[in-house]
């Protein structure tokens, strides 16, 4: 890295990093520090006096059954979204990688959903699943199924999982396809010569060679499901019915913005920060081929 240094003087480079550093300090580090500080304080009911309480907010949090429920819910939700969207994406990528007519068109038609906003995906699914006006919702009712995701917690969870996974398929598809294309044709040919066919060839040769892509996507999808689905949940269910779809991020918003419980919300933020740090560390530990330092 040192050999790259080609210009002298420090005024110019400092001027170059300054905008990035200022934004980082004011909008990332400072608020994060504030969150850590606030997580160790508690305000009285009128928000006038603030008292230092140490780790009390955290011990309260982890002895609160509602919070533990929310952790469990987030894990189930994230795992379902990751598995569902990755499975569909892998299936489509395997077939789009075949030498067939029109594969360029198929790829384009599977890539554009990358552009759909999580919240807009949710609106589309509202329009499909709505018990009164939605195609699927209406159809299910016609079949005699009591479908109303605004009243039934399990159905609500299903709806947010479907909308979240649907939006993410395209991203996973792009990566799986790139992963498949980077497998040398010779390896596949050799397996074909050895008589490994179809499913067996996929299971014993292709899938193991895709492992780095799969692992990378697991981390990305879990981060996506846990942190980027606030808009999806808000548009579809607003965390309800009851708290049936209240994930950890949604709960930070509800407790902090709607209920104005600063101490608890900050403690939850700090817990989430630790979770992101852990996930990022895992990602760089196993995927860190590019940023060695």
């Amino acid at each position: 890295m040192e050999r790259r240094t080609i210009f002298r003087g420090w005024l110019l480079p400092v001027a170059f990093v300054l905008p990035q550093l200022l934004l980082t300090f004011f909008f990332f580090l400072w608020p994060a520090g504030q969150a850590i500080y606030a997580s160790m304080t508690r305000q009285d009911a009128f928000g006038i006096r603030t008292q230092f309480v140490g780790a009390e907010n955290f011990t309260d949090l982890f002895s609160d059954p509602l919070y533990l429920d929310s952790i469990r819910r987030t894990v189930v939700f994230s795992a379902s979204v990751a598995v569902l969207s990755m499975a569909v994406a892998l299936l489509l990528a395997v077939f789009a990688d075949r030498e067939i007519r029109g594969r360029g068109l198929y790829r384009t038609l599977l890539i554009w959903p990358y552009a759909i906003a999580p919240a807009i995906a949710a609106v589309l699914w509202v329009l499909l699943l709505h018990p009164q006006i939605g195609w699927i919702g209406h159809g299910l009712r016609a079949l005699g199924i009591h479908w109303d995701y605004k009243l039934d917690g399990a159905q609500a969870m299903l709806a947010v999982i479907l909308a979240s996974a649907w939006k993410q398929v395209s991203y996973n598809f792009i990566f799986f396809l790139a992963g498949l294309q980077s497998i040398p044709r010779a390896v596949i040919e050799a397996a074909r010569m050895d008589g490994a066919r179809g499913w067996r060839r996929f299971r014993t040769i292709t899938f193991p060679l895709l492992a780095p892509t799969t692992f990378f996507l697991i981390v990305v999808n879990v981060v996506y499901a846990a942190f980027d689905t606030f808009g999806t949940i808000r548009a579809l269910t607003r965390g309800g019915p009851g708290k049936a779809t209240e994930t950890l991020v949604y709960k930070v918003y509800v407790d902090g913005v709607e209920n104005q419980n600063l101490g608890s919300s900050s403690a939850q933020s700090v817990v989430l920060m630790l979770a992101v740090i852990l996930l990022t560390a895992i990602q760089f530990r196993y995927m860190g081929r590019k940023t060695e330092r």
Partner: protein
Amino acid sequence: MNRRIDWTAHIVLILGVALFVLPVWLVFAGATQDPGAIDRGELSLLPNLHGFGVFADVLGNGVAGATPVWRMLAVSFGMALAIAVGKIAISLLSAYAVTFFRFPLRMVCFWTIFITLMLPVEVRIIPTYAVMAGFGLINSFTGLTVPLIASATATLLFRQVFLAIPDELVEAARMDGAGPWRFFRDILLPVSAANVAALFVILFVYGWNQYLWPLLVATDPRLDTIVIGIVKMIGTDSAVPWNKVMATSVLALLPPIAVVLLMQRWFVKGLTEGDK
């Protein structure tokens, strides 16, 4: 080699495409239907050819009591553009500084930027709001965009690109007596042009699709983005004008999809070669 048509592949892929095209088509067709019919659950797969006026209607007037859709599209467009251009600009500069200069606390700067990877807005909702309020940036376009412009990912990406530039090229530029600005313009910018294009797509979509941040910092309806606007429309418990919601959804989808499709080649390459 294989002359037979691979029916399995075609069927799977057509179903896959339908999984994404069909919902959007349904919503598009639905937008043109009579609101009464939609309420009764009588959505048709075919658009009503006389109903296209709804698009012009929501663009110009919006839904009763809400901001017109053209205005929300303009706010979204401005936001996405400002975030994409801003992030690329300050990331190019900071990557340039940490890669080609030596200055005090260089690695401290690098790690400070790196850390922001671990602090997404979702985990620091309340304190960031407090900082924004302190700066008087609530309900301003600056507040909507500037805090989202800091980017560790883009800085890391450009640093990788710069580190991969062959020594000979750097050496040649040095021999030519290129100053910092000429080196940046004549060597670094052309070398990273493809990455800039790819990143532009990713960041434009990122900016367009923001929801939580605008929800927090902009309560003034005049600053409603299109995503915020649609969620507001379906959030009311009273009679929702479903045909207008559907028309607005279609309009909200078009710009980011157009950017992805127009720049597909760079985008796919850049996405899978960069870290994220």
